[in-house]
């Protein structure tokens, strides 16, 4: 008999849940509810057997019955929701509201990325697709990483204190992101394919196109068999993805940098003229040797592109100072 009571509860639960599940409309569901939970329902029937149980078993049985009841109730209310959603009939009974739907939406606070960062992120993504990994180096550098390792001799004009922001002897704000080339090559043997975006500092007089702090993106590849032809293809791929435009042209014009040879300026023809976007070239053997890389076996190329310049060209920003004014009316245009 005792066994029978627990079993009854179990059977009741299974059957009730099955019936709830198969109910296809509200009246059918109501019939199930009355059949199980009603005054003359099956649960009441089972509970009537309570009195015949030994006293010590009664609480457990009661609790078990409560759980069954809660489960059935939960299933009923779930089914109610299900039927009301499914039934086309009941949708006619949906509440009506009277919103003025011609009102504008509530303003959600919307921020924005800085245009220089937007361009920088895009450049990182495109070079990422070309197999370049992001590397990093300090913004305050020593002369070894900023000059000596880069084949810039001691009496070179680039080292002149008036051309740099020195903190003290042998410590300066880096004047180029090429410093990261040396840092990476010191720590990692070739093959290498990295980019390093970041701030650089030069004491230029501030005007519409010059600032004393700006951003560069440095690139470096060192591998066996790397040629100037690879440099050309890489930069062309990059600019075609950055500025998809049929009229865009790229040319590498011979130039001079101490840390590359041959060296070239990266000239971009876009919209209405040629613009200098940065410098590039084959890594000078002296640079490779300065970090202990065999320049007979390994060759490589490097480039440095001005990020502000690309941002100004792509967004039509006329003055580099707008980037650091941080006027909200300027910034919010890039949200």
């Amino acid at each position, binding site marked *: 008999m005792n066994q029978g009571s627990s079993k009854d509860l179990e059977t009741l639960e299974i059957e009730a849940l099955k019936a709830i599940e198969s109910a296809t409309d509200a009246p059918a569901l109501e019939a199930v509810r009355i059949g199980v939970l009603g005054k003359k329902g099956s649960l009441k029937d089972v509970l009537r057997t309570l009195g015949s149980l030994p006293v010590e078993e009664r609480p457990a049985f009661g609790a078990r019955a409560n*759980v069954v009841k809660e489960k059935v109730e939960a299933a009923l209310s779930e089914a109610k929701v299900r039927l009301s959603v499914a039934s086309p009939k009941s949708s006619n009974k949906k509440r009506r509201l009277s919103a003025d739907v011609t009102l504008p939406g509530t303003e959600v*606070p*919307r*921020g*924005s990325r*800085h245009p220089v*960062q937007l361009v920088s*992120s895009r450049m990182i993504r495109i070079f990422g697709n*070309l*197999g370049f*990994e*992001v590397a990093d180096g300090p*913004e*305050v550098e020593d002369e070894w990483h900023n000059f000596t390792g880069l084949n810039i001799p001691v*009496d070179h*004009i680039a080292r002149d*204190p*008036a051309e740099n*922001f*020195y*903190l*003290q002897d042998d*410590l300066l*704000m880096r004047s180029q992101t090429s410093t990261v080339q040396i840092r990476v090559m010191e720590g990692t043997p070739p093959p290498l394919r990295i980019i390093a975006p970041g*701030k650089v*500092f030069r*004491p230029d*007089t*501030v005007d519409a196109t010059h600032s004393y*702090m700006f951003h560069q993106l440095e690139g470096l*590849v060192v*591998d066996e068999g*790397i*040629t*100037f*032809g*690879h440099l*050309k*293809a*890489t930069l062309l*791929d990059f600019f075609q993805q950055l500025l998809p435009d049929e009229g865009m042209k790229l*040319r590498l*014009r*011979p*130039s*001079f940098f101490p840390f590359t*040879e*041959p*060296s*070239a*300026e990266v000239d971009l023809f876009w919209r209405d003229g040629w613009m200098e976007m940065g410098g590039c070239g*084959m890594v000078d053997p002296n640079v490779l040797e300065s970090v202990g890389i065999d320049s007979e076996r390994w*060759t490589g190329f490097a480039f440095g592109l001005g990020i502000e310049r690309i941002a100004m060209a792509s967004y039509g920003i006329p003055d580099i100072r707008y980037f*650091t*004014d*941080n*006027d*909200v*009316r300027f*910034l919010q245009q890039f949200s």
Partner: protein
Amino acid sequence: MKVSLNWLQEHVKVDLPVEDVAFKLTMSGLNCESIEKHGDDHVLDLEVSSNRPDLLGHRGIARELACLLGLPLQPLELDYPVIEKDPDDRNLDEVVALIVDDEDRCGRYIARVALDVKSGPSPAWLRQRIEAIGLRSINVVVDLSNYVLMDLGQPLHAFDLDLLEGEEVVIRRAMRGEKFAAIDGSDHELDSEDLVIADSARVVALAGVMGGSQTEVDGKTSRILLESAWFEPVPVRETCRRLLLNSDSSHRFERRVNVDGADIASRRFFHLLCRETDAQVLAGCLETIREHLVDPVPPITVRPERVELILGQAISEQEITRILAGLGFVEESQGDAAGKWSVPSWRADCSREIDLIEEIGRIHGLDRVPDRQMEVRTVPESDSAQLAERVKSLMVGTGHHESLTFSFGTAGEFDEIENWWCIGEPWVVKNPVRSDEGILRRSILPGLLSCVRGNRVHGVETVRLFEVARVFHRREGVDRPVEKVHLAWVHSCFEGIEGSEAYRGVRGVADAVLDLLRIDKHVRSSATWNPAPDDSGMLSGSSASLYVSTDRLGIVGAVELDGVTGETWCGELDLGSLIDYAQVDLRYEEFSRQPGVRRDLNIVISDDILWRDISTEVEAAQLDNLEDLTFVDLYRGKQLPKGHKSVTFNLTFRAGDRTLTHEEVDETVQGLIKRLEERIQAKLRT
């Protein structure tokens, strides 16, 4: 460098439109910035890179052009007639003495003398050349020295020999305080670092920079001494910078002129002087040259396969030979050096095979090298870079505009905020653009706050800015700045908001960042906020600092911005360190599917009881089945006893294995209320 096309024609017979000449030169490394018509001549403005002083003269550029076009370079005539003795029967070295006191700075000095000079106006051709490139014609002697300078890139200077006292030329350091009147009319006080040309009485020229007005050649001049020299580049540059004096001469000396060119230029001058005037040149020259001034560069091997490896295109040996020979390199034919290339004296920039490969690439045309694709490679993802990007997205999503401020600037208004982050002297840039702007920032907030002020003053009523950037701290025992990546944000608006609510707004940003980085999950409950000390730079009573483990990694609070009404709240986190603490691995955690029971409590407590006191009490009570404690609201008002506030919070209870009854939860809550009454004198608000 301004270059006349007609002038170039003296050296190479070019038969091309000027635009084509400009393009050829541009694509070989001499960028043409402009072309101007000047009578029947064209003047090109060419950009000469610092390693090529040989291109600071027309002949050097003509040599490039000849090589590019496969044309011959015309020979340079240097001969002139001489007389052995002057009318007083004196040789050159009896007429004037040359004394070089400082060979370290004056590597070579050549002096020649001409007599019976009548320095009248220049002939038409000379005037045209000089004027085409923007110089003023003065007299034939001065014009010829300028002509040779602009032709061969070797500065020359003619002294009126009759105005030199003591018939001697001394190259020495200036005495401190010595005066010098330059030919351009400027007066200077010299330093012992300056190299000068002097006679027995005074300074007559600033070596490599400018001649003096007292020995200037003019219409009355009859005897000249012509200087052609080689001065050390760096001291010339330093003198120029110190005296704020520049000239076509110093521009070339600073870039290292050709040592062999000094004699050639001197002879070229006298060739032209004799051709154009009746001047008589005294035979011989006075000359000093420092030993080992130039160490000869050993001849260089060029391997065609190496040329191909660097450029990515095979260049024939015949083409390699044509290019190098055209630029003046000489292929050795005998001995050990056979087949190697000797470097001409004017190409001090070339000493290695790679230097010659560059020459080959440049003249062949880098634009003719075919593009070559690199092989495909995948890039490993960087967790910390991605986290930083996600933090920035969060800031944008919460309405902040990303800003960009300078890494160094002025000290002032917000020094306390900077000091809070890093006590100790800031790092300082020695020569900032403006003298007061050299202090490397230890905190981003001061820069961001000044942008907020700019915006508010311009009428923007609500300003939300953020920036992620490096700051520079000083740490004992580290001899360079410790660079840290910080995140700072500011919310400034016209209307004031109740303090705690505004605080919660700015703190909510910090909490969201901590959540994103899952700091609390990693170092459980060790991220805590404490009231910040009064010297944190924030308004007293507005500010809290964040500790993770024992590191102080952030601050939020309000600041007073002069001239700005309303409220300005801000925060800053040491993002780099937080990212180091971040838990990046996602892992599913089992949760209870049992129904929970929620209880809202509204208590009245004394104003000096903080939320943390309440939450600590709740935690300490170790309530059965307590899942969560959430702050809802804080209220101060007239309905409450003086010095009191009401705090509403809710408690969620849930058991892992069963449904809780309301009775047992109520009992637990009653226990808590009793505890709060006893411990923090809280009263239930009804």
